[in-house]
């Protein structure tokens, strides 16, 4: 080992290599995790999945649009039932418009039409609009839970969670 001053021995070489490799892996992992984080949005503009929708007395018969822009839900009161209707067209997921003079929902993308109840009757929509879980809290407020949907063609609209009797 005469020239050990300017060359590494085997042990030194491996210890340097280990330190370097660990740092390289750590940097790569840090970069990877940053890139992974980057793929998620900083701010989420999606509507909340659960919200309080006033009290049953707030609603007149017919379609109520006050929670449509914030939560994507029409509150529809008809035939003694209050339901939370999804505003997503069952054809391709556009947002229909409520036409008060014609008493129907009409989709601007392919012309699907729905009655006030959400049942499809014109255009290509293959099934009725979905309804969300709706319940009355002990303090008298209505809670709408969009994580649970009820589909008419599966016979789920008569489920007690799918409507409020008013």
């Amino acid at each position, binding site marked *: 080992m005469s020239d050990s001053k300017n060359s590494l021995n085997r042990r030194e070489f491996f210890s340097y290599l280990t330190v370097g490799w660990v740092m390289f892996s750590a940097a790569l992992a840090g970069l990877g995790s940053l890139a992974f984080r980057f793929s998620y949005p900083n701010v989420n*503009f*999606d*509507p909340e999945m659960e919200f309080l929708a006033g009290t049953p007395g707030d609603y007149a018969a017919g379609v109520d649009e006050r929670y*449509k*822009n*914030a*939560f*994507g839900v029409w509150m529809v009161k008809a035939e003694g039932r209050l339901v939370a209707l999804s*505003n997503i067209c*069952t*054809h*391709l997921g*556009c*947002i*229909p*418009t409520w*036409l008060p*003079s*014609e008493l129907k929902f*009409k*989709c*601007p*993308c*392919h*012309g699907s*039409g729905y009655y006030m109840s959400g049942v499809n*009757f*014109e*255009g*290509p929509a*293959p*099934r009725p609009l979905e309804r969300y879980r709706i319940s009355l809290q002990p303090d008298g407020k209505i809670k709408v839970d969009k994580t649970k949907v009820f589909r008419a*063609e*599966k016979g789920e609209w008569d489920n007690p969670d799918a409507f409020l009797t008013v």
Partner: protein
Amino acid sequence: MLKALINQLADPIISFPIATLAFWWMIKYYRFFGSKKFGMWALIVSIPVVAWFFADPNFYLIIKTPDNVPIGILLILVCFFTWFSLHKAAVNDERIEQGLVPIEALPENREKVWSWPNLVYTELFAIIACTAFLVIWAIIFKAPLEEPANPTWAPNPAKAPWYFLGLQEMLVYFDPWMAGVVLPGLVVAGLIAIPYIDTNPKGNGYFTFMERKWAIISFLYGWLVLWVYLIIVGVFFRGPNWTFYGPFEYWDLHKVVAEYNINLSEFIWIKGLGIGMPKNLILREIFGILLTFAYVGIIPVWVAKATKIGRKFYEDMGSIRYYIFMFLFITMMSLPIKMVLRWLFSLKYIVALPEWELNL
């Protein structure tokens, strides 16, 4: 008066048969439509007609939208190139009938040149010209910036980019799975498959119609009527709530059109037999399922056995090619068939199984 008539004729119930008939006449009398005289007169007549269209405020509102400028270019190019190819084919077919070779096979046209520089220079200039054109276009027509996206609101009407409006029009008649995935996939697969299905060497390197009748008819029908025509419908005839409006009609948000649609199963079980819908899903849709199987499975076999043209195709192509071709062809024809059924009978779906997300 004339505008009201055009507004009525534009309704696809009328304009689709007109487009199909016009296509058929164009093919049948292609020598007349492909003549230089017709081309001149069509150009002379079309200029004042187009000016008259532009003078209408409602039509001008649609055509002046920056998004719709490519439509004008597309229509001009489609008209010109269709006429141009018919013209070339008509000239060559006449020469072939007289026992002469096509123009492209004349000695002076068979002279060979080097691809460098002849081809590469042409390509270079084409690239430069295209880039300059796109840059100038991008400067003149600004991309419309709208408000931030809102997941609980959609513009009315919500239109796809102009080149997809034919697809969007298809979606009105089909289930999203069919019109959004299966049919476009088959269009792409079918176009790729053309050279393997159609191995006829006639028409390679020269224009002709008589020697390639069926290939040209089926391609041009799919392109001109089922694609370009549907784009025209989507651009000019669809307004708020995706309702039909004539080209000169004001887009009134409250135009009421009754479009009550029902499924084939309801037609048969409720209106035809007068009994309710069966609970069993398969039994409920059995007629539509049988019809679909007959359409896809029996028609190709019947055509191959019973018709003259079908026997000829079957012999020329062999069974595998023939059945692939027929499958693609009848899939393509299902689009006009479904559209006509919707307009005539308000038929929504032939097989309607929303429980399984399957509708045909």
